[in-house]
C-alpha cells in the first residue's frame, strides 16, 4: 500500500491566517485544497513538504458571485462538481462547465477545486511515477535529477500542462486573484503560466490563489474539446478551448484559441485566431485556422498515445471546435 510521507498539518480558519502561516513556514510549507493532485504526488515522493497548510475550510474561497452579464467571481476552493453543474456557467460559459465536468471522475471532482486544477502540477510519464521507478531510471530534471528524459539534449523540462480548465480560462480572458501576507494582485490568467515544465507558474510561493474572475459573457460563445483515451480518469492529451464573439452579421468580431496539453503551459494560437477576425466561418477559413493553430502543438513522447497522433489531432480538433459554432448557428437559424 502506497502511503503519504509524514508532515505537519496546519488548518487555518480564515484566509488571512492562511497567508500568515504561509509566510511563517516559508519553503517548509505547501498549500493543499482538495489534495487530489498533491496527495498522489506526495505518495510518489515528488513532493515531501514538512508542512501542509490546508485551504479546504476557508469560507472565502468557496463563494460564487456576480453574473454572466457583469462578470463572475469564483472562489478558488469551489469544487469541480459544483462548477460543472452551475447553471450560469452551463449557459453562458459552457466551455468552463464542460472542462470542469471532464476532469477525472465524479469522486475526484467532488473534492478537487478550480484553483487546484489551475495550479495542477505539470505531468510527464517519466515524472509521474513512484519514487522506486524514478530512482531506477535515474531521476529527471524536474525532480531529483538533471536530465530531461524525454528530450535528453534539452536544457529545459518538458512536462505538460494537463489541466482542463487552464486553456479554457485563457480563452475566456479570465483573471486570477492572488493574495499573500505582503498584499494582493489580480493578473490575467495567461500571465499565471510560464513555459517551463519545472516552474510552470508565476505565482510566488507565498501567494494563495483565491479567486478566478470571469469577464462578462455577453456576446461570447465558448467550447472545450478534450482528447483522451477513456471516458473518465484520464488527463487530456490534447485540449482545445475556443471562445468566439460573433458580430451582428455572423462574422467573427473576436476570437481566442488556446491549446492545452501540448506544451508546459496553455498555448494561445493568436495568429490563428487573428485569421478569424472580420471573417465568416467557412470550411476553407476553418481549415486554414485549424492548420495554423495546430502548428503550436509540439507534443513530445511523454504522454499517452503517439506524439505524432496527438499532433495530427490538433488540426482536427480545432476544426471541430470551430465547427461546433457553425453547427450551433445553423441549428439556431
Amino acid at each position, binding site marked *: *500500500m*502506497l*502511503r503519504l*510521507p*509524514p508532515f505537519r498539518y496546519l488548518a487555518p480558519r480564515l484566509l488571512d491566517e492562511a497567508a500568515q502561516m504561509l509566510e511563517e513556514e516559508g519553503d517548509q510549507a505547501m498549500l493543499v485544497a482538495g489534495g487530489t493532485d498533491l496527495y498522489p504526488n506526495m505518495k510518489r515522493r515528488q513532493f515531501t513538504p514538512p508542512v501542509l497548510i490546508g485551504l479546504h475550510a476557508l469560507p472565502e474561497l468557496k463563494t460564487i458571485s456576480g453574473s454572466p452579464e457583469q462578470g463572475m467571481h469564483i472562489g478558488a476552493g469551489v469544487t469541480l462538481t459544483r462548477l460543472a453543474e452551475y447553471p450560469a456557467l452551463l449557459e453562458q460559459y459552457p466551455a468552463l462547465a464542460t472542462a470542469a465536468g471532464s476532469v477525472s471522475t465524479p469522486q475526484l471532482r467532488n473534492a478537487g477545486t478550480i484553483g487546484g486544477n489551475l495550479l495542477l502540477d505539470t505531468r510527464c*510519464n517519466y515524472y*509521474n*511515477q*513512484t519514487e*522506486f*521507478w524514478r*530512482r*531506477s*531510471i535515474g531521476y529527471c530534471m524536474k525532480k531529483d535529477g538533471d536530465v530531461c*528524459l524525454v528530450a535528453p539534449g534539452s536544457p529545459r523540462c518538458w512536462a505538460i500542462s494537463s489541466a482542463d480548465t487552464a486553456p479554457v480560462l485563457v480563452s475566456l480572458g479570465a483573471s486570477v486573484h492572488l493574495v499573500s501576507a505582503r498584499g494582493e494582485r489580480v493578473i490575467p490568467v495567461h500571465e499565471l503560466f510560464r513555459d517551463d515544465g519545472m516552474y510552470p507558474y508565476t505565482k510566488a510561493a507565498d501567494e494563495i490563489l483565491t479567486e478566478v474572475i470571469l469577464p462578462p459573457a455577453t456576446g461570447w460563445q465558448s467550447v472545450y474539446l478534450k482528447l483522451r*483515451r*477513456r*471516458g*473518465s*480518469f*484520464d488527463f487530456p492529451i490534447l485540449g482545445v478551448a475556443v471562445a468566439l464573439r460573433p458580430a451582428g452579421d455572423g462574422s467573427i468580431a473576436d476570437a481566442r484559441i488556446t491549446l492545452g496539453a501540448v506544451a508546459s503551459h496553455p498555448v494561445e494560437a493568436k495568429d490563428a485566431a487573428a485569421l478569424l477576425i472580420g471573417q465568416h466561418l467557412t*470550411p476553407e477559413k*476553418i481549415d486554414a485556422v485549424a492548420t495554423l493553430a495546430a502548428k503550436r502543438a509540439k507534443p513530445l513522447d511523454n504522454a*499517452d*498515445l*503517439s506524439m*505524432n*497522433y496527438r499532433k*495530427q*489531432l490538433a488540426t*482536427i480538433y480545432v*476544426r*471541430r471546435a*470551430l*465547427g*461546433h459554432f*457553425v*453547427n450551433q448557428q*445553423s441549428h439556431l437559424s
Partner: protein
Amino acid sequence: MAKDQQQKTRAYKIIGTPRPKVDAYAKVTGRALFADDIMLPRMLYGRLLRSPYPHARILSIDTSRAQALPGVLAVITGADLPQKFGILPSSQDEYALAIDKVRYVGDPVAAVAALDPDILDEAIKLIDVEYEVLPAIMSIEEALAHPEVKINDEARIGNIHKAVSYEFGEVEAGFAAADYIREDWSYYEGNNHAPIEEHACVAQWEPNPSDPAGGKLTLWSSTQTPHYVHRELSKVLGLPQSHIRVIAPNVGGGFGGKSDPFSHEICACELSRRTGRPVKITCTREEVFLIHRGRHPVKMWIKTGVKRDGTLTAMHFRSFLDGGAYGSYGIATTYYTGALQTVTYKLPCYKFEGIRLFTNKPPCGPKRGHGTTQPRYAIEVHLDKLAHDLGIDPVELRRRNLVEPYTHTVNGLRITSCALGECLDQVVERSKFHPNKLAAAANPHASNGSVQYQPAIKRGLGIAASAYICGAGKPIYWNDLPHSAVQIRLDRGGGVTVYCGATDIGQGSTSILAYIVAEELGIQPERIHLETADTTLTPVDLGSYSSRVTFMAGNAAIAAARKLKEQLFEVASERLHVPSESLQAANDVIYDEHDPGVALPFEHAVQFAEARFGALVAAGSYAPPEGIHGDYKGAGVGPSPAYSYSACVAQVAVDVETGDLVVEKLWLAHDVGQSINPLLVAGQVEGGAYMGCGEAVMEQQIFRKGLHKIPSLLDYKLATTLDTPEIETILVEIPDREGPFGAKEAGQGPLNPVIPAIANAVYDAVGVRIDEVPITSDKVFRALKNLAQGKGTELQPTPIELSSPWPTRLISWQHNGSQGEDQSKASHVPVQGGVS
C-alpha cells in the same frame, strides 16, 4: 445438435436457477474478509526491496544500516532463502530473493519487517546493494539476436527457454492439396490481469520448541492456488508440509495473476519465523505490474491451405513468446499457443512450432485464456482474410470446417460435446450479422458526416469463434492423485458441511459446490456451510486455473454426496417402506416419488443414518479420464475432459477522421453445457467479454528504457463504464456427458473470440487491418492514412526471420486408428474417468 443428452430424471430444483452466491451478502455488506483485512495482534508490516535494473549482477548487499533502524525487526536477503522454486517442476528457476543476479526491474532482492509502514519506508532506503549493470534484453528479437547476453540458466541455448516442434499428419501433402494458400503475421501485446485487489498476504509463525520442525506456519494469501503455494513454501522454507497451512480468504480477482507461488508469500513466512510475530505484506499497484505473470506478448505466423470452397487442408503455425525473466507457467503457455488450433475446426494435418524467449522484463504467465487467446486472434482474423480472398461468407467458411462432437483431433485431443454451431447461429441471428462486404457507399451501418463538422462514423460487424479447456488434463506436477476432492459431513442437527480446496476468486466456485451438494441431497443451499481453500482443513483441489473447478470439484462433490445419499436412502427406505429406487430427495425431504406425501424430513434421515452407520462423512474425488491425449512428449498440455465453445459478434464504430474506435456492442454465445447458476455463468461471459474488449483496444504491458512504461491504473488503461460496450449474453446449454450435471466452463472461454471479432469488425467498418493488438486509435488513424495514400490496407508487424532451423527436434505424430468418431464413446455413464 447433440443426439445423446444427459439423462435428467426430473427437473432440477437448484441447478439451472438464478440465485445469489453464498457469499453475496458478505460481499455487499463489507463483511467479506480479504487478505489485507486481516489484522492480527502484534502484527508487523513487511516490504520487499526490488531491483532498479533490468539486468545486473549483485556484487554485495549490506543490510546493517537497515537492521540498526529502531523498529526494524528483521531483514533478509537471498542468502537466507537459497532454495529455488517455481510453479512448474520443469521451471524451478526462481529465488524468493535474488542470488547473484537480478533479471528485471522489480526482481526482489531483500525483505524487511518493521513495526509500522513508515519505518519500512526508511528501512528500505537503508539497504545498500551494489550492482554491476549488464546489458538488457527487452524484446523477442533482441533475445534471439543476443544469445551471448544470457538472462536465465534455464535456457540451454542463448535465451531460448523452450522450443517445441510438432507435425501431425502429412502437412506437405496437405498444402499440396490446397487450391489456395495464405500466410499472415500478427502480434499480440502482453497485458496484465489488473485485479482490483493488489496481492497481499499475512504469515503467522507459532513456535513450538518441542516440535522438531520448530513450530507451525499459517499463511493467508490472496492466491488462486493454495495447494501449489503450500508445496513451494515447504520446499523453500525447509518445513514439512504438515506444518504449513495455506488459506485463501476472499480473493479480489485473480484472472491467472495469483496462481504462482510468490516472493512476498515466502518472505512474509520467513520474516514471521524470524520475528515470532505475524507479518503482513501488501503489494502496491506498481508491484502488481512487476509481479505480473500476465499475458505473454506473442508474435505469430500462420499459413493455411484451403480448398476453393473454404475447406481447410493444412495449417502451419509458429509462435514466438516473450516470456520475461523467469519461467512461471511459460512452458505450458508455449504448448498452449499451439494446442487448441485443432479443437474448433477440422484440421487434417497440422504443424506447430513454438518458442519462448527470456527477456529482462517481469515474467509472463497465465492470464485468462492462457496462451490460447493470442493464437485464437491470429486464426480468426486469418480466416476472415481467407473468406474475403475466396469470396466466401466468413460464417459459412467456419461452419464448413467445424469439428464434430465425439471425435479426436489430429494432435490427439479428445473432443466430446461441442455446440459451436449453435453458438455461431445465435450470434449471427441476434446481431443480424452480414458477411463482410466493404463498399463505402453500401455500408448499411455508416452514418456520414451529414451534419457538418460532426465526426463521420462508420460502423462494422465482425465475427469470431473459439474454444477453451474445462480444466487442464494434467496437474502442474505430474502424479496419480485426484485433481479435486470434496469431503461432506452431515450433522445430526441437519447441518451439512462441505470441505473442498477449491478457491473462490469471484467466479463463484464456493457457491457451485453448495448448489451441487444441495441438488444431490435434496436440501436448500442455505443449510450448507462451506470450508474452502484451506490446506489443513480441506482436501486438495489443485486451484482456480485452467477453468477446472466446476468440472472437477463439481464431479467430486457429486461423488461424495451420492455416497451419503445412498446411506440416507437406505434408512429412509426402511422407515418409509419404500424401495430405494423409488425415493427422491428435494425440498429438505426424502419422499416416495409415486406418493410424495410419504416423506421423511432430511434431519430425521440423517439421525437414523448416523445411528446405523456412525458419523456420516464421505469423500469424493475426481481425476480426468484416460485417453484424452496423444502419447507424444508434450501431449500433456491441451487435453481436457471437455471443451467449451464460444462465438462472438462485435459491432464497432470508427471515426474515420481521427481513427477513434468505439466498441459499441458484443454478442456472445457460450456453449456451457449446463449452467449451474445462470447468473454466475452470464457474469463470467460478461466479465470475459469486458476483459477481451479491453485487451483488444487499450490494455498493454509495455516497456521503455528497461522499465515498465505505465505501472499504474491511470496509465495502464482499464475500461471504465464509459468505455465498455453493451454485452448481450446467450447461453447455449446442451449438457456435456461428463460435466457435473452437464456443466462446462465459463470463466475463460468467452474472452477469446472477442478480440478477433473486434479486429474483424474494424475491417468491416473501414477496410483496414491492424494485425497488432491492442488496436488503438493512433494505429487506426495511421492505417486509414495509409489506405488513403494507396499504401495498402494492412498494418502488419515485422516478421521474425529465423536464420537457422527451429532449435529443437521435430516430433511427428499420428493418432492411431481412424480419425473420426470416438470408438470409446460411452453414452450413459454420467461421470467418466477417475471418480471415486
